[in-house]
């Protein structure tokens, strides 16, 4: 295993064992006898620990997996799941926002429109793509592409993966609230099926701006939250080191959100997170996309819009005693 990899805090015990194993293997290669048994034992321990750590991740640990720098991005899934993708650019109003990736492609033989948040693979690309945090022009590009899809009767596939909307001067000057609100309103009205998949970070309004859909899925380690755990901790605890507690309190994991009927299904990830096996993960995503579009394709468009509204309309939890 590559030791220069990015290590999350909770992986440290595992990394320690792995580096010990590496040393032993080097010794064996150098001709040291009688360590085969120890190597075998250590390998077993690693496997056990790996299983133990990853099968019981806390919400905060899942947030870290969702933010892992090696985690597959929208562009990776576009390459693995679709064919003939053509990238479109620009909102026709201000500029092209590289934090949003979009364009038409084929999902098997079905024409679809892809719109997703796009993070970078390294620091340089992340700076160019603003770490997947769109400016208003990003939401407006997304809307433009979705309108194209509506016009040409192509289902819309949204990939959600953003820390959130970008809190900057330009973003405010150009009306990011208005841009997000516009997407929420318009997405409710499109007469083509919309399927959204949260592949990593679902940060608040910036995520929701691509999240009004007929079916919403999450990868098993993705999170979806009204506010970042750090932001919540700094407001409610006045201490951002309480992010772990905040992640717990916010119920931001896929299983909790399935219970609340905010999402419709969870897509399995390989043990350790999507980056350990992007192919496996993409096959899971492809399956739910094909199944969902098959099912939604049977709806007449007015029923589709009505059902999408009903799906949103019932969200909420309150008491209403008779007066």
């Amino acid at each position, binding site marked *: 295993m590559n030791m220069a990899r990015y290590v999350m805090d909770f992986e440290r015990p595992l990394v320690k064992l792995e580096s010990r194993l590496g040393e032993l293997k080097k010794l064996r290669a150098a001709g040291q006898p009688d360590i085969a048994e120890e190597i075998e034992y250590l390998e077993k321990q690693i496997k056990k620990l790996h299983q133990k750590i990853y099968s019981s991740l806390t919400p905060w640990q899942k947030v870290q997996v969702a933010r892992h720098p090696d985690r597959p991005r929208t562009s990776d899934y576009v390459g693995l799941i679709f064919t003939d993708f053509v990238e479109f650019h620009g909102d026709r109003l201000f500029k092209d926002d590289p934090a949003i990736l979009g364009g038409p492609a084929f999902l098997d033989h079905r024409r679809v429109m892809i719109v997703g948040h796009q993070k970078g693979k390294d620091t340089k690309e992340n700076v160019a793509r603003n770490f997947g945090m769109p400016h208003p022009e990003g939401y407006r590009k997304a809307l433009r592409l979705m309108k194209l899809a509506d016009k040409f009767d192509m289902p819309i596939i949204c990939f959600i993966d953003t820390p959130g*909307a*970008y*809190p*900057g*001067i330009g*973003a*405010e*000057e*150009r*009306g*990011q*609230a*208005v841009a*997000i*609100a*516009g997407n*929420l*309103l*318009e997405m*409710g*009205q499109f007469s083509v099926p919309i399927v959204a998949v949260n592949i990593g970070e679902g940060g*608040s*309004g910036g995520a*929701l701006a691509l*999240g*009004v859909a007929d079916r919403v899925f999450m990868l098993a380690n993705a999170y*979806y*939250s*009204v*506010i970042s755990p750090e*932001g*919540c901790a700094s*407001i*409610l*605890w*006045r201490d951002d080191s309480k992010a772990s*507690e*905040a992640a717990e*309190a*916010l*119920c*931001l994991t896929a299983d909790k*959100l399935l219970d*609340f009927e*905010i999402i419709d299904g969870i897509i399995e990830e390989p043990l350790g997170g999507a980056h350990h096996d992007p192919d496996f993960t993409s096959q899971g995503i492809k399956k739910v996309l094909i199944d969902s579009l098959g099912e939604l394709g049977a709806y007449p468009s007015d029923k589709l819009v009505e059902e*999408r*509204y009903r799906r*949103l*309309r019932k*969200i*909420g*939890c*309150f*008491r*209403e*005693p*008779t*007066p």
Partner: protein
Amino acid sequence: MPISEWFHRKEKYTRVTPPSEKKEIPEGTCIKCDACGGVIFQGELERNYRVCPKCDFHFRISSWDRINLLTDENSFSELDSNLTSEDPLNFVAAKSYPENLSQAKEKTGLREAVITGEGRLDDHKIALAVMDFGFIGGSMGSVVGEKVTRLVERATKEKTSLIIVCSSGGARMQEGMLSLMQMAKTSATLAKLHEAGVPYISVLTHPTTGGVTASFATLADVILAEKNALIGFAGPRVIEQTIKQKLPKGFQTSEFLLEHGMVDMVVHRKDLKATISKLLDFFVG
């Protein structure tokens, strides 16, 4: 305009700070304006719609004062007043959510952060929602989302003009994703209102930020803003921490939004009712 005035013009952007909660103060008592520091008689402030007569700073007013300001006498009847919040997440931070709620109820005398109902404004029939920042920062949880949605549905069905007076810090953290989804819910229902040709005027008051700005607050046919209000998506502190620099004076004020094309007009509180009335004359006749 002489060149000297270019520089002078900047002065109208003043940093606005939310006024602290004021207890009942008898007429004749003096209070200090949070914006200009000037001393104002309480009675004078009340007669001036709780606007500082010296600098036009708009103090926050309670939802009921706002309703009285906008509706014709005894014309308002409240809807869905019995809706109250649950604690679906069993949310506990420094305080538990039920504690937050009961404190907010006690402090404001309200059951939730929005009052909805029907009434008349200069004889125009209106559906009116008024948010109250005093109730957990005017935050939108399930109840706010549901009450606004029901009001919009009713306005759509009865073709009653819709007025929403906003004041909110955004989505309510304590209800997690259920709060965030209220943005989508209220926005989707407004699409139906627009399709039905029903007018919607939104009034942004100090402060309106976050998920409310990014949903129903900015989806109106005409957007009015009270003078000097703080309006934006991200809060100024978060922006400063992100970009690691001080924000320009007047950033995210009503006047800033007007300049950037995000609101139709900035209105003094004393002119608010007359302005809405005139707009309804245009749209409804």
